[in-house]
Protein backbone atom coordinates (compact mmCIF):
# COMPACT_ATOMS: atom_id res chain seq x y z
CA UNK A 1 0.00 0.00 0.00
CA UNK A 2 1.22 3.49 -0.80
CA UNK A 3 1.50 6.15 1.92
CA UNK A 4 1.82 9.63 0.45
CA UNK A 5 3.66 12.50 2.14
CA UNK A 6 3.99 15.94 0.51
CA UNK A 7 6.76 17.96 2.14
CA UNK A 8 7.42 20.26 -0.80
CA UNK A 9 6.34 23.45 0.97
CA UNK A 10 8.18 22.83 4.22
CA UNK A 11 11.44 24.38 5.35
CA UNK A 12 14.54 22.45 6.53
CA UNK A 13 14.43 20.08 8.44
CA UNK A 14 10.68 19.57 8.68
CA UNK A 15 10.63 17.30 5.59
CA UNK A 16 13.23 15.07 7.18
CA UNK A 17 11.45 14.99 10.55
CA UNK A 18 8.08 14.13 9.01
CA UNK A 19 9.57 11.56 6.64
CA UNK A 20 11.31 9.70 9.46
CA UNK A 21 8.14 9.83 11.51
CA UNK A 22 6.09 8.48 8.60
CA UNK A 23 8.48 5.57 8.06
CA UNK A 24 7.60 4.29 11.52
CA UNK A 25 4.01 3.71 10.34
CA UNK A 26 5.04 1.48 7.43
CA UNK A 27 3.97 -2.15 7.63
CA UNK A 28 5.13 -5.06 5.50
CA UNK A 29 4.09 -4.48 1.92
CA UNK A 30 3.78 -0.70 2.41
CA UNK A 31 5.95 1.98 0.90
CA UNK A 32 6.13 5.71 1.47
CA UNK A 33 6.08 8.13 -1.43
CA UNK A 34 7.54 11.52 -0.47
CA UNK A 35 6.99 14.54 -2.71
CA UNK A 36 9.87 16.99 -2.21
CA UNK A 37 11.24 20.08 -3.90
CA UNK A 38 14.88 19.16 -3.22
CA UNK A 39 16.91 15.96 -3.21
CA UNK A 40 17.09 15.25 0.54
CA UNK A 41 20.69 14.12 0.94
CA UNK A 42 20.71 14.29 4.77
CA UNK A 43 17.80 11.79 4.80
CA UNK A 44 19.59 8.92 3.06
CA UNK A 45 22.17 7.94 5.71
CA UNK A 46 19.36 8.04 8.29
CA UNK A 47 17.25 5.66 6.23
CA UNK A 48 20.28 3.42 5.83
CA UNK A 49 20.84 3.31 9.58
CA UNK A 50 17.20 2.68 10.45
CA UNK A 51 16.78 -0.27 8.08
CA UNK A 52 15.04 1.23 5.07
CA UNK A 53 15.69 1.11 1.34
CA UNK A 54 14.86 4.01 -0.92
CA UNK A 55 14.67 5.24 -4.46
CA UNK A 56 14.93 8.93 -5.30
CA UNK A 57 14.09 10.23 -8.75
CA UNK A 58 13.59 13.66 -10.28
CA UNK A 59 10.01 14.26 -11.29
CA UNK A 60 6.56 14.82 -9.93
CA UNK A 61 4.93 18.16 -9.23
CA UNK A 62 7.52 19.48 -6.80
CA UNK A 63 10.77 18.25 -8.34
CA UNK A 64 11.65 14.99 -6.61
CA UNK A 65 9.90 11.78 -5.54
CA UNK A 66 11.39 9.53 -2.92
CA UNK A 67 10.09 5.99 -2.37
CA UNK A 68 10.91 4.34 0.96
CA UNK A 69 10.25 0.80 2.17
CA UNK A 70 11.55 -1.65 4.78
CA UNK A 71 14.80 -3.26 3.69
CA UNK A 72 14.11 -6.79 2.51
CA UNK A 73 10.38 -6.17 1.92
CA UNK A 74 10.18 -7.71 -1.55
CA UNK A 75 6.48 -6.98 -2.03
CA UNK A 76 6.95 -3.26 -1.39
CA UNK A 77 10.09 -3.18 -3.50
CA UNK A 78 8.21 -4.83 -6.33
CA UNK A 79 5.41 -2.26 -6.14
CA UNK A 80 7.93 0.56 -6.26
CA UNK A 81 9.69 -1.00 -9.23
CA UNK A 82 6.36 -1.21 -11.12
CA UNK A 83 5.57 2.48 -10.73
CA UNK A 84 9.10 3.79 -11.18
Amino acid at each position, binding site marked *: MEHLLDV*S*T*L*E*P*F*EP*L*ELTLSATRDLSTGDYLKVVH*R*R*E*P*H*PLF*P*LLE*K*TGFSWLCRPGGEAGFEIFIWHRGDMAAEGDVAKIS
Partner: protein
Amino acid sequence: MLNTAHLSLEQAPPISIPFRFFLTAPLFGAAAGFVLIWVGEAAMVSRWSPVVLSLTHLITLGFLTMVMCGAMMQMLPVLAGSPVPGIGPVGAVTHLALSLGTGALAYAFMQGSAGWMKLALLLLGIGISVFAIAAGLALARVKLSSPTVTGMRWSLASLVITVALWMLLSTGFFGIVALNNLPSYTDLHLGWGLLGWMGLLLIGVSYQVVPMFQITPEYPRIMRDHLTGSLFFGLFGWFLLEIGVIRGYWSTLVPGCWMLLVTAGFPLFAGTTLHIQRLRKRQVSDVTLIFWRVGLIGILFGYLVWLIGRALPEAATAPWYPLLLGTLLLFGGAFPLVNGMLYKIVPFLSWFHLQNRQLALGAFHVKLPHMKGFIGDREARLQFYLYLAALFLALAAVFRPALFTRPAGAFLVLTNLMLGYNLLRAVMRYRNTKVLLNQTESH
Protein backbone atom coordinates in the same frame (compact mmCIF):
# COMPACT_ATOMS: atom_id res chain seq x y z
CA MET B 1 20.16 26.32 -5.53
CA LEU B 2 21.33 24.68 -2.35
CA ASN B 3 22.68 21.22 -3.00
CA THR B 4 22.17 19.44 0.26
CA ALA B 5 24.90 16.97 -0.72
CA HIS B 6 27.24 19.70 0.53
CA LEU B 7 25.59 19.82 3.93
CA SER B 8 28.51 18.34 5.75
CA LEU B 9 28.70 18.21 9.50
CA GLU B 10 32.04 16.42 9.59
CA GLN B 11 33.83 19.64 8.79
CA ALA B 12 31.55 21.93 10.77
CA PRO B 13 32.90 23.63 13.89
CA PRO B 14 31.66 22.62 17.33
CA ILE B 15 28.33 24.30 17.81
CA SER B 16 29.74 26.28 20.72
CA ILE B 17 31.71 28.41 18.26
CA PRO B 18 28.83 30.06 16.40
CA PHE B 19 26.59 29.96 19.49
CA ARG B 20 28.94 32.11 21.57
CA PHE B 21 28.78 34.82 18.89
CA PHE B 22 24.98 34.61 18.65
CA LEU B 23 24.49 34.78 22.42
CA THR B 24 26.89 37.73 22.83
CA ALA B 25 25.31 39.91 20.17
CA PRO B 26 22.10 40.75 22.10
CA LEU B 27 24.22 41.88 25.06
CA PHE B 28 25.76 44.59 22.90
CA GLY B 29 22.35 45.50 21.53
CA ALA B 30 21.12 45.91 25.09
CA ALA B 31 24.24 47.92 25.95
CA ALA B 32 23.33 50.36 23.17
CA GLY B 33 19.91 50.71 24.78
CA PHE B 34 21.43 51.38 28.18
CA VAL B 35 23.62 54.10 26.67
CA LEU B 36 20.52 55.77 25.22
CA ILE B 37 18.73 55.60 28.56
CA TRP B 38 21.73 56.96 30.42
CA VAL B 39 22.61 59.81 28.09
CA GLY B 40 19.09 60.72 26.95
CA GLU B 41 18.49 63.41 24.32
CA ALA B 42 22.16 64.41 24.24
CA ALA B 43 22.65 61.21 22.23
CA MET B 44 20.76 62.70 19.29
CA VAL B 45 22.66 65.96 18.86
CA SER B 46 24.57 65.02 15.72
CA ARG B 47 26.18 62.09 13.93
CA TRP B 48 29.55 63.28 15.18
CA SER B 49 28.63 63.15 18.86
CA PRO B 50 30.74 60.65 20.79
CA VAL B 51 27.57 58.97 22.00
CA VAL B 52 26.28 58.38 18.46
CA LEU B 53 29.67 57.00 17.42
CA SER B 54 29.62 54.72 20.42
CA LEU B 55 26.04 53.57 19.75
CA THR B 56 26.72 53.01 16.05
CA HIS B 57 29.63 50.70 16.80
CA LEU B 58 27.83 48.84 19.56
CA ILE B 59 25.25 47.92 16.92
CA THR B 60 27.50 47.49 13.85
CA LEU B 61 30.31 45.64 15.60
CA GLY B 62 28.76 44.30 18.78
CA PHE B 63 25.57 43.03 17.25
CA LEU B 64 25.74 42.83 13.46
CA THR B 65 29.41 41.88 12.89
CA MET B 66 29.30 39.55 15.89
CA VAL B 67 26.43 37.53 14.36
CA MET B 68 27.88 37.70 10.85
CA CYS B 69 31.29 36.35 11.94
CA GLY B 70 29.67 33.49 13.86
CA ALA B 71 27.39 32.67 10.95
CA MET B 72 30.22 32.70 8.40
CA MET B 73 32.32 30.36 10.52
CA GLN B 74 29.44 27.91 10.51
CA MET B 75 28.24 28.45 6.96
CA LEU B 76 31.55 28.07 5.19
CA PRO B 77 31.99 24.39 6.09
CA VAL B 78 28.31 23.46 6.11
CA LEU B 79 27.13 25.25 2.96
CA ALA B 80 30.33 25.64 0.95
CA GLY B 81 32.15 22.50 2.05
CA SER B 82 35.22 24.50 3.07
CA PRO B 83 36.13 24.46 6.75
CA VAL B 84 37.73 27.45 8.40
CA PRO B 85 41.27 26.37 9.37
CA GLY B 86 42.00 26.22 13.06
CA ILE B 87 38.37 26.95 13.81
CA GLY B 88 38.68 26.37 17.56
CA PRO B 89 41.36 28.98 18.30
CA VAL B 90 40.15 31.23 15.45
CA GLY B 91 36.63 31.27 16.85
CA ALA B 92 37.80 31.83 20.40
CA VAL B 93 40.25 34.62 19.54
CA THR B 94 37.84 36.38 17.18
CA HIS B 95 35.01 36.27 19.68
CA LEU B 96 37.10 37.48 22.60
CA ALA B 97 38.89 40.22 20.66
CA LEU B 98 35.68 41.42 18.99
CA SER B 99 33.83 41.51 22.31
CA LEU B 100 36.54 43.27 24.30
CA GLY B 101 37.49 45.49 21.37
CA THR B 102 33.94 46.68 20.80
CA GLY B 103 33.56 47.46 24.49
CA ALA B 104 36.86 49.34 24.47
CA LEU B 105 35.87 51.26 21.33
CA ALA B 106 32.49 52.28 22.71
CA TYR B 107 34.16 53.46 25.90
CA ALA B 108 36.91 55.27 23.95
CA PHE B 109 34.31 57.28 22.04
CA MET B 110 32.35 58.16 25.17
CA GLN B 111 35.46 59.23 27.10
CA GLY B 112 37.40 60.71 24.16
CA SER B 113 40.30 58.58 25.31
CA ALA B 114 43.25 57.97 22.98
CA GLY B 115 44.48 55.24 25.32
CA TRP B 116 41.27 53.26 25.11
CA MET B 117 41.13 53.87 21.35
CA LYS B 118 44.61 52.36 20.97
CA LEU B 119 43.50 49.34 23.00
CA ALA B 120 40.39 49.02 20.80
CA LEU B 121 42.57 49.31 17.69
CA LEU B 122 44.78 46.51 18.94
CA LEU B 123 41.97 44.17 20.00
CA LEU B 124 39.73 44.72 16.99
CA GLY B 125 42.74 44.63 14.69
CA ILE B 126 43.74 41.22 16.06
CA GLY B 127 40.20 39.82 16.08
CA ILE B 128 39.25 40.93 12.61
CA SER B 129 42.64 40.00 11.12
CA VAL B 130 42.47 36.48 12.54
CA PHE B 131 38.92 36.09 11.28
CA ALA B 132 39.65 37.60 7.85
CA ILE B 133 42.72 35.44 7.26
CA ALA B 134 41.02 32.21 8.34
CA ALA B 135 37.78 32.93 6.47
CA GLY B 136 39.80 34.12 3.48
CA LEU B 137 41.69 30.82 3.34
CA ALA B 138 38.45 28.87 3.58
CA LEU B 139 36.90 30.95 0.79
CA ALA B 140 39.98 30.50 -1.40
CA ARG B 141 39.75 26.72 -0.98
CA VAL B 142 36.08 26.36 -1.93
CA LYS B 143 35.92 23.75 -4.67
CA LEU B 144 32.46 24.47 -5.98
CA SER B 145 31.83 28.20 -5.99
CA SER B 146 28.36 29.68 -5.84
CA PRO B 147 26.79 33.14 -5.78
CA THR B 148 26.78 32.92 -1.98
CA VAL B 149 30.52 32.17 -1.87
CA THR B 150 31.15 35.03 -4.29
CA GLY B 151 29.14 37.37 -2.07
CA MET B 152 31.14 36.24 0.97
CA ARG B 153 34.43 36.92 -0.85
CA TRP B 154 33.49 40.47 -1.78
CA SER B 155 32.06 41.03 1.67
CA LEU B 156 35.27 39.90 3.37
CA ALA B 157 37.36 42.14 1.12
CA SER B 158 35.05 45.00 2.12
CA LEU B 159 35.58 44.21 5.80
CA VAL B 160 39.35 44.48 5.37
CA ILE B 161 38.97 47.84 3.62
CA THR B 162 36.54 49.06 6.31
CA VAL B 163 38.97 48.19 9.09
CA ALA B 164 41.94 49.69 7.23
CA LEU B 165 39.99 52.95 6.83
CA TRP B 166 39.03 52.90 10.51
CA MET B 167 42.67 52.46 11.53
CA LEU B 168 43.58 55.41 9.32
CA LEU B 169 40.73 57.45 10.83
CA SER B 170 41.69 56.61 14.40
CA THR B 171 45.28 57.65 13.89
CA GLY B 172 44.02 60.91 12.35
CA PHE B 173 41.30 61.47 14.95
CA PHE B 174 43.78 61.38 17.79
CA GLY B 175 46.47 63.32 15.98
CA ILE B 176 48.80 60.38 15.68
CA VAL B 177 48.93 61.03 11.93
CA ALA B 178 48.05 64.31 10.18
CA LEU B 179 44.90 63.56 8.24
CA ASN B 180 42.74 66.23 6.71
CA ASN B 181 39.19 65.74 5.53
CA LEU B 182 38.20 63.37 8.33
CA PRO B 183 34.48 63.54 7.40
CA SER B 184 35.18 62.20 3.91
CA TYR B 185 37.26 59.31 5.23
CA THR B 186 34.54 58.64 7.76
CA ASP B 187 31.97 58.40 4.97
CA LEU B 188 34.24 55.99 3.13
CA HIS B 189 34.61 53.86 6.26
CA LEU B 190 30.86 53.94 6.81
CA GLY B 191 30.09 53.13 3.18
CA TRP B 192 32.43 50.17 3.01
CA GLY B 193 31.22 48.85 6.34
CA LEU B 194 27.52 49.18 5.74
CA LEU B 195 27.19 48.57 2.01
CA GLY B 196 30.28 46.40 1.49
CA TRP B 197 30.83 44.18 4.54
CA MET B 198 27.21 43.99 5.70
CA GLY B 199 25.32 44.59 2.48
CA LEU B 200 27.24 42.16 0.28
CA LEU B 201 27.22 39.42 2.94
CA LEU B 202 23.49 39.80 3.49
CA ILE B 203 22.85 39.67 -0.26
CA GLY B 204 25.14 36.68 -0.80
CA VAL B 205 23.71 34.70 2.09
CA SER B 206 20.15 35.56 1.04
CA TYR B 207 20.65 33.69 -2.21
CA GLN B 208 20.79 30.49 -0.14
CA VAL B 209 18.73 31.11 2.94
CA VAL B 210 15.72 32.93 1.50
CA PRO B 211 14.69 30.17 -0.95
CA MET B 212 15.76 27.52 1.57
CA PHE B 213 14.04 28.79 4.70
CA GLN B 214 11.29 30.95 3.28
CA ILE B 215 10.30 28.51 0.49
CA THR B 216 10.51 31.12 -2.23
CA PRO B 217 11.52 30.72 -5.86
CA GLU B 218 15.20 31.26 -6.56
CA TYR B 219 16.53 34.77 -7.12
CA PRO B 220 16.90 35.68 -10.83
CA ARG B 221 20.02 34.09 -12.30
CA ILE B 222 21.39 37.40 -13.57
CA MET B 223 21.16 38.89 -10.08
CA ARG B 224 22.82 35.92 -8.41
CA ASP B 225 25.68 35.90 -10.90
CA HIS B 226 26.47 39.60 -11.10
CA LEU B 227 25.04 41.78 -8.32
CA THR B 228 27.60 41.39 -5.51
CA GLY B 229 30.60 41.71 -7.83
CA SER B 230 29.10 44.75 -9.54
CA LEU B 231 28.38 46.39 -6.20
CA PHE B 232 31.90 45.74 -4.95
CA PHE B 233 33.48 47.32 -8.02
CA GLY B 234 30.94 50.11 -7.83
CA LEU B 235 32.04 50.81 -4.26
CA PHE B 236 35.67 50.68 -5.31
CA GLY B 237 34.99 53.21 -8.06
CA TRP B 238 33.32 55.44 -5.49
CA PHE B 239 36.36 55.06 -3.22
CA LEU B 240 38.70 56.25 -5.98
CA LEU B 241 36.38 59.14 -6.89
CA GLU B 242 36.18 60.25 -3.24
CA ILE B 243 39.96 60.23 -2.99
CA GLY B 244 39.90 62.50 -6.01
CA VAL B 245 37.57 64.89 -4.15
CA ILE B 246 39.86 64.83 -1.11
CA ARG B 247 42.81 65.61 -3.36
CA GLY B 248 40.86 68.46 -4.94
CA TYR B 249 40.69 67.00 -8.45
CA TRP B 250 36.93 67.27 -8.88
CA SER B 251 33.78 68.16 -6.99
CA THR B 252 31.61 65.92 -4.82
CA LEU B 253 29.12 65.84 -7.69
CA VAL B 254 31.26 63.23 -9.43
CA PRO B 255 31.20 60.49 -6.75
CA GLY B 256 27.64 61.56 -5.90
CA CYS B 257 26.41 60.77 -9.41
CA TRP B 258 28.37 57.52 -9.43
CA MET B 259 26.78 56.41 -6.18
CA LEU B 260 23.28 57.07 -7.54
CA LEU B 261 23.99 54.25 -9.94
CA VAL B 262 25.77 51.97 -7.50
CA THR B 263 23.41 52.18 -4.55
CA ALA B 264 20.41 51.32 -6.75
CA GLY B 265 21.59 47.72 -6.43
CA PHE B 266 20.42 47.58 -2.82
CA PRO B 267 16.77 48.57 -3.28
CA LEU B 268 16.81 46.32 -6.35
CA PHE B 269 17.81 43.43 -4.09
CA ALA B 270 15.25 44.43 -1.42
CA GLY B 271 12.45 44.74 -3.97
CA THR B 272 13.32 41.43 -5.61
CA THR B 273 13.31 39.69 -2.24
CA LEU B 274 9.91 41.14 -1.35
CA HIS B 275 8.67 39.97 -4.74
CA ILE B 276 9.84 36.37 -4.41
CA GLN B 277 8.48 36.28 -0.86
CA ARG B 278 5.05 37.07 -2.32
CA LEU B 279 5.43 34.05 -4.59
CA ARG B 280 5.88 31.63 -1.68
CA LYS B 281 3.99 28.39 -2.11
CA ARG B 282 3.10 28.30 1.53
CA GLN B 283 1.67 31.64 2.60
CA VAL B 284 2.13 31.08 6.30
CA SER B 285 3.75 34.02 7.98
CA ASP B 286 6.43 33.32 10.55
CA VAL B 287 8.53 35.64 12.68
CA THR B 288 11.55 35.52 10.39
CA LEU B 289 9.43 36.53 7.45
CA ILE B 290 7.96 39.54 9.25
CA PHE B 291 11.39 40.61 10.51
CA TRP B 292 12.63 40.40 6.94
CA ARG B 293 9.72 42.38 5.57
CA VAL B 294 10.50 45.17 8.03
CA GLY B 295 14.20 45.01 7.18
CA LEU B 296 13.64 45.11 3.43
CA ILE B 297 11.16 47.98 3.73
CA GLY B 298 13.69 49.71 6.01
CA ILE B 299 16.28 49.46 3.22
CA LEU B 300 13.83 50.88 0.70
CA PHE B 301 12.91 53.81 2.98
CA GLY B 302 16.58 54.37 3.77
CA TYR B 303 17.33 54.58 0.08
CA LEU B 304 14.46 57.02 -0.41
CA VAL B 305 15.78 59.26 2.37
CA TRP B 306 19.25 59.10 0.85
CA LEU B 307 17.85 60.09 -2.56
CA ILE B 308 16.02 63.03 -0.95
CA GLY B 309 19.33 64.12 0.53
CA ARG B 310 20.93 64.08 -2.93
CA ALA B 311 18.07 66.08 -4.43
CA LEU B 312 17.76 68.57 -1.54
CA PRO B 313 21.19 69.50 -0.13
CA GLU B 314 19.56 71.60 2.60
CA ALA B 315 17.93 68.40 3.93
CA ALA B 316 21.23 66.55 3.78
CA THR B 317 22.94 69.17 5.93
CA ALA B 318 20.23 69.16 8.64
CA PRO B 319 21.48 67.54 11.88
CA TRP B 320 18.61 65.02 11.91
CA TYR B 321 19.34 63.74 8.37
CA PRO B 322 22.30 61.41 9.04
CA LEU B 323 20.64 60.19 12.25
CA LEU B 324 17.47 59.29 10.32
CA LEU B 325 19.46 57.60 7.57
CA GLY B 326 21.57 55.65 10.05
CA THR B 327 18.57 54.57 12.10
CA LEU B 328 16.67 53.41 9.00
CA LEU B 329 19.54 51.52 7.41
CA LEU B 330 21.14 50.03 10.50
CA PHE B 331 18.29 49.56 12.93
CA GLY B 332 15.47 49.46 10.40
CA GLY B 333 17.36 47.49 7.77
CA ALA B 334 20.31 45.33 8.79
CA PHE B 335 19.23 44.64 12.39
CA PRO B 336 15.87 42.97 11.65
CA LEU B 337 17.34 40.94 8.78
CA VAL B 338 20.01 39.54 11.10
CA ASN B 339 17.58 39.16 14.03
CA GLY B 340 15.10 37.24 11.87
CA MET B 341 17.74 34.95 10.43
CA LEU B 342 18.95 34.01 13.92
CA TYR B 343 15.54 32.45 14.50
CA LYS B 344 16.24 30.10 11.59
CA ILE B 345 19.97 29.50 12.00
CA VAL B 346 19.92 28.53 15.70
CA PRO B 347 17.18 25.86 15.46
CA PHE B 348 18.64 24.63 12.16
CA LEU B 349 22.11 24.18 13.63
CA SER B 350 20.79 22.69 16.87
CA TRP B 351 18.68 20.10 15.10
CA PHE B 352 21.39 19.34 12.52
CA HIS B 353 24.04 18.69 15.17
CA LEU B 354 21.68 16.61 17.33
CA GLN B 355 20.51 14.56 14.35
CA ASN B 356 24.08 13.73 13.42
CA ARG B 357 24.94 12.89 17.01
CA GLN B 358 21.91 10.59 17.13
CA LEU B 359 23.03 8.95 13.91
CA ALA B 360 26.59 8.47 15.17
CA LEU B 361 25.40 6.86 18.42
CA GLY B 362 22.45 4.96 16.97
CA ALA B 363 20.34 6.45 19.77
CA PHE B 364 17.07 6.47 17.85
CA HIS B 365 14.97 5.94 20.96
CA VAL B 366 15.82 9.51 22.06
CA LYS B 367 13.20 11.87 20.69
CA LEU B 368 14.73 15.01 19.26
CA PRO B 369 12.84 18.28 19.70
CA HIS B 370 11.12 19.45 16.54
CA MET B 371 12.91 22.27 14.76
CA LYS B 372 10.07 24.58 15.76
CA GLY B 373 10.40 23.44 19.36
CA PHE B 374 13.71 25.19 19.97
CA ILE B 375 12.31 28.72 19.90
CA GLY B 376 8.69 29.35 20.86
CA ASP B 377 6.68 31.26 18.28
CA ARG B 378 4.90 33.34 20.93
CA GLU B 379 8.18 34.41 22.53
CA ALA B 380 9.70 35.23 19.15
CA ARG B 381 6.70 37.34 18.19
CA LEU B 382 6.86 39.20 21.49
CA GLN B 383 10.50 40.02 20.79
CA PHE B 384 9.49 41.27 17.34
CA TYR B 385 6.87 43.63 18.79
CA LEU B 386 9.42 44.96 21.28
CA TYR B 387 11.80 45.54 18.35
CA LEU B 388 9.10 47.33 16.37
CA ALA B 389 8.38 49.61 19.32
CA ALA B 390 12.10 50.32 19.67
CA LEU B 391 12.36 51.13 15.96
CA PHE B 392 9.43 53.57 15.91
CA LEU B 393 10.59 55.24 19.09
CA ALA B 394 14.13 55.56 17.71
CA LEU B 395 12.79 57.15 14.52
CA ALA B 396 10.64 59.50 16.60
CA ALA B 397 13.64 60.31 18.78
CA VAL B 398 15.48 61.65 15.71
CA PHE B 399 12.91 64.47 15.56
CA ARG B 400 11.82 64.70 19.21
CA PRO B 401 14.84 63.55 21.19
CA ALA B 402 13.70 64.96 24.54
CA LEU B 403 10.51 62.91 24.41
CA PHE B 404 11.54 59.66 22.79
CA THR B 405 15.24 58.89 23.31
CA ARG B 406 14.97 57.19 26.70
CA PRO B 407 11.84 55.16 25.80
CA ALA B 408 13.64 54.06 22.61
CA GLY B 409 16.58 52.99 24.73
CA ALA B 410 14.32 51.08 27.09
CA PHE B 411 12.69 49.11 24.28
CA LEU B 412 16.07 48.51 22.68
CA VAL B 413 17.17 46.93 25.95
CA LEU B 414 13.98 44.88 26.23
CA THR B 415 14.02 43.55 22.68
CA ASN B 416 17.65 42.49 22.96
CA LEU B 417 17.19 40.86 26.34
CA MET B 418 14.21 38.96 24.95
CA LEU B 419 16.23 37.88 21.92
CA GLY B 420 19.04 36.70 24.18
CA TYR B 421 16.57 34.82 26.36
CA ASN B 422 14.96 33.10 23.33
CA LEU B 423 18.32 32.07 21.94
CA LEU B 424 19.52 30.88 25.34
CA ARG B 425 16.44 28.69 25.74
CA ALA B 426 17.18 27.10 22.36
CA VAL B 427 20.77 26.45 23.41
CA MET B 428 19.63 24.89 26.68
CA ARG B 429 17.17 22.66 24.79
CA TYR B 430 20.04 21.61 22.57
CA ARG B 431 22.31 20.86 25.52
CA ASN B 432 19.69 18.89 27.45
CA THR B 433 18.94 16.72 24.42
CA LYS B 434 22.64 16.18 23.81
CA VAL B 435 23.03 14.98 27.40
CA LEU B 436 20.28 12.41 26.80
CA LEU B 437 22.01 11.24 23.62
CA ASN B 438 25.39 11.02 25.34
CA GLN B 439 23.89 8.88 28.09
CA THR B 440 23.29 6.27 25.41
CA GLU B 441 27.00 6.30 24.60
CA SER B 442 28.00 5.73 28.21
CA HIS B 443 25.72 2.70 28.42
